[in-house]
């Protein structure tokens, strides 16, 4: 990566970063860094990451970064934001943290319209722990805990985050699903998510991402799984808030 293409707010001392080759986290964090650069928010942002692979971003930026516990990134940022409303809070997590162990925090923050920007990386597996089924694992997808493919009868259907939150979020909240296959579009969605926080509202952006290590895929198969399998079930784009429409 050339010096020019690296976001200004990336902490150069912690680069090259620690994610596996082919992992999508680096692209999500690049899009996030560019969004923060373009909005000129570097002096105001506090970034918190989950455990799981996202913890590898604990020193990723030049602004304050904090590594929390599994699924607890959102309540930490909610507490910080209540105490210091002038800060811009970014809660960064994986799909296990946001949709399984910490789902109550995600739903509650959306319900309360907490002014934070939550960013969730969906790679369809628990990656750091060795590739178990996540709430986002696609039907038929093989993982260590679904070795013969995810079976709906046994495990239910994959979880659609932004669509679920659209039933509870504040009408002014921002909900979107981006993908590392379209980094500039993802950057713009993250920008809108940050701007929505500045306007006093909750923002949630899911980013479809890749995990060749646990998918056991080569470059071509990795990209095909992201762009075809994942993107056809998890449709990228902004998600309208349905809550409040009945009022």
């Amino acid at each position, binding site marked *: 990566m050339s010096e020019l293409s690296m976001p200004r707010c990336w902490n150069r001392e912690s680069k090259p970063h620690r994610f596996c080759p082919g992992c999508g986290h680096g692209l999500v964090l690049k899009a996030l860094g560019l969004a923060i650069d373009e909005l000129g928010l570097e002096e105001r942002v506090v970034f918190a990451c989950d455990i799981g692979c996202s913890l590898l971003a604990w*020193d990723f930026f030049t602004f304050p970064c904090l590594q929390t516990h599994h699924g607890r990134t959102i309540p930490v940022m*909610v507490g*910080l934001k*209540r*105490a210091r409303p002038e800060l811009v809070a970014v809660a960064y997590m994986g799909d296990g943290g946001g949709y399984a162990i910490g789902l109550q925090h995600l739903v509650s923050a959306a319900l309360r319209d907490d002014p934070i920007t939550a960013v969730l990386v969906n790679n369809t597996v628990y990656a750091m722990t060795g590739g178990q089924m996540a709430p986002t694992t696609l039907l038929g997808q093989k993982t260590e805990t679904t070795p013969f493919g995810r079976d709906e009868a046994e495990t239910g259907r994959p979880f659609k985050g932004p669509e679920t939150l659209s039933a509870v979020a504040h009408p002014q909240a921002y909900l979107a699903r981006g993908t590392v296959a379209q980094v500039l579009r993802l950057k713009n969605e993250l920008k809108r998510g940050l701007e929505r926080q500045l306007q006093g509202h909750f923002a949630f952006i899911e980013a479809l991402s890749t995990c060749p290590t646990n998918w056991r895929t080569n470059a071509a198969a990795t990209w095909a799984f992201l762009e075809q399998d994942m993107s056809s079930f998890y449709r990228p784009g902004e998600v309208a808030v349905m809550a409040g429409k009945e009022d």
Partner: protein
Amino acid sequence: MAKAAELESRAFITGNEVVARAALAAGADCMFGYPITPQNEIMHHWRRLAPQQGRLFMQTEDELSAGFATIGAVIGGKACFSATAGPGTVLFQEPLSMAEMMRLPVVVVVQQRGGPSTATVIYSQQELNLVCFGGNGEGLRLVYSTGSHQELYDYTIKAFHMAWRYRFPTFVLGDGYQAKMREPLQLYDPAERGFGPIPKEPIFGSVRGEGEKPLLHLRNSFSVEEELSEVLGRHLEDYARAAPELVEHEFLGGAGGELLVVAHGIVGRAARQAVRELRAAGRRVNFFRPITLRPFPEEALRQALEMSGGAVLVAESAQGQLGKLVRLAAAEWGRPRYRTLYRPGVGITAEDIAAEIEEAILA
């Protein structure tokens, strides 16, 4: 902060209200809470009183969120607390273990209820193990066990100061009796008793040690054993260095005693009364009450044992949770003769203790 004149007054209120008023008087900025009996009225009073003074309250979706939101606000440089009990104290172990690892001055008031599990909403002393050693670590915490409403007020104020001065998560350990009963106490302005503003500061940007850089990146996970060992080793050293400055206890009696009665919290109060009455009747019985359970006043306990001929009666509303701490501390003294009055989840009166003392001395 309220004016001193408003604070200087006698009050006859419940222990839960005492905690809320103490936190206000101390200058605490926010409380994150989740309902569980018997601590609810701490939230109720804080919610009614605190926003008028520009302080914050938030009712969270669960205890995990209450604990982690407290952590977030503490990182932002605010003096924050929560309160819980029983199964809530179990859930609080997760955020508290993070606070322990990252040296975050989180304050939690625990009003103990019966256990294990849901048990009773009434009373016990069964949460000692949890508040002292509940995390997946070494128990680098500060725990004050109170025995009266005056102490609830005094130590809630002190908890904020000590948490921020020493940067260890700090507990005020009460119980359902203390939470719900009313008794008189003296309210006061902490500044007039040597407690000025809480020494708080934003954690990001703060500097821990000499020659160290301002904190910018905070983590609680490490890649290799040696890395953890180095960080934890520093915390353990800090804790060992702070312990002699932190330990507090109460002793009643003198040399030549026949028996040492050891109890904490509200059972300590019953034990004190029993010992006073028996001493007035000419019995040479001594009384020791640890006020800090972590760190434990070990040296003071050994001195008390020395003055009591090595005979001990431990009384608690738990099955030996205090007893274990006493045995551990006494091991360096020698081999005391133990008697125990353990009633897990059940109250203990001065009469119960007096009867046990009589039997112990006769035996």
